[in-house]
């Protein structure tokens, strides 16, 4: 029942042949595929991490760009606003100036007209006064001398500002 013989060598041969063949057909291929999978998972994870970082960078970049665009837009709006304000002010100033000019011109014209009217009135008054004087005193005076006398009288009135025609 218990005897040790050459079967031991045969069994050892069995064992070593089995070990050799299993290493070749089972252990090595399985280890290889396990390593490969581990590598693949590692590299996939690394890649994912890298992609995430890249995405974050791009996101930050775009956010910055968006911010810049906002700022620029704000600047443009501000500039346009200030320009518009300036233009409006200019227009108002121009209009005011024009209005002032026009007013001054019209005043001058009125003044002129007033002067002319006063002169005319003065002449007319002189004529009427001469005629009235003629009628009133019925004196035979030389008309030219008479005219002169009245003109003097009126001038004196002007000097004393009694007529208030100027």
């Amino acid at each position, binding site marked *: *029942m*218990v*005897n*040790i*013989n*050459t*079967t*031991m*060598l*045969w*069994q*050892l041969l*069995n*064992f070593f*042949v*089995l*070990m050799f*063949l*299993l*290493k070749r*057909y*089972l*252990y090595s*291929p*399985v*280890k*290889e*595929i*396990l390593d*490969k*999978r581990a590598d*693949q998972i590692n590299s996939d994870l690394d890649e994912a991490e890298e992609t995430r970082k890249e995405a974050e960078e791009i996101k930050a970049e775009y956010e910055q760009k968006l911010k810049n665009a906002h700022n620029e837009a704000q600047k443009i709006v501000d500039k346009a606003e200030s320009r518009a304000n300036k233009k409006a002010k200019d227009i108002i100033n121009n209009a005011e100036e024009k209005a002032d000019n026009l007013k001054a011109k019209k005043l001058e014209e009125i003044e002129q007209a007033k002067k002319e009217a006063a002169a005319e009135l003065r002449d007319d008054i002189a004529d009427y006064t001469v005629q009235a004087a003629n009628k009133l005193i019925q004196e035979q005076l030389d008309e030219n001398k008479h005219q002169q006398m009245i003109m003097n009288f009126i001038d004196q009135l002007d000097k004393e500002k009694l007529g208030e025609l100027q």
Partner: protein
Amino acid sequence: MNPGPQILFYLFGKDYLPITDTLIVGWVSVIIILIGAKYLTTSLTLRPNGKQNVAEFIIEIIYKQIEPMLPGEGWRFLPFIATIFIYIGVGNLIGVVPGVTNPTGDLNTTLGLALVVFVVTQYEGMREYGVWGYIKGFAEPVIFLLPINIIGELAKPISHSFRLFGNIVGGGIIITLIYQAAPALIPVPLHAWFGIFVGAIQALIFGMVAIAYISVAKS
């Protein structure tokens, strides 16, 4: 009744190279294992399918037994230890088939494997500490423990081999006795018990003890 290996015929004439039934079953086991391994590892892919999962499960579960005991050297020892697990496991379980003798029920098989483990253990110990350093380890912690340590070391392959051999042969003897004494109904669960449960447990123990011996020699 004559338990144990039966010599079926002699290769090269009378009395030379006896071929026993255990040896033939051993060859059959090897062929079954190789066919199984080849079947499980055809078309390995990164995304495993059913049979590839089985192959990876077997390798990984054995690897996980080795790695904690021999840190960093799991893959170096895997072919040796995994072959012990698989060969003894199949050798034990094949006895469930009625009329088939376990190759592990032959002391030649178990002692042979235990001696290989013994040699590997000594080699690993010397590789770790140097030849002289390893031998000096037997004289520690005090010199007069040297003979006891040496006897203890030499007892390892004997206990290692006889444990497996005794369990398998003992199971076989009990089953044979009950087959003779009782009707066919009772031995079937008992046969399954000794064949499957004890067989699996003993294969696990043999492999774990081999790992433990190597681990002890290296520490």
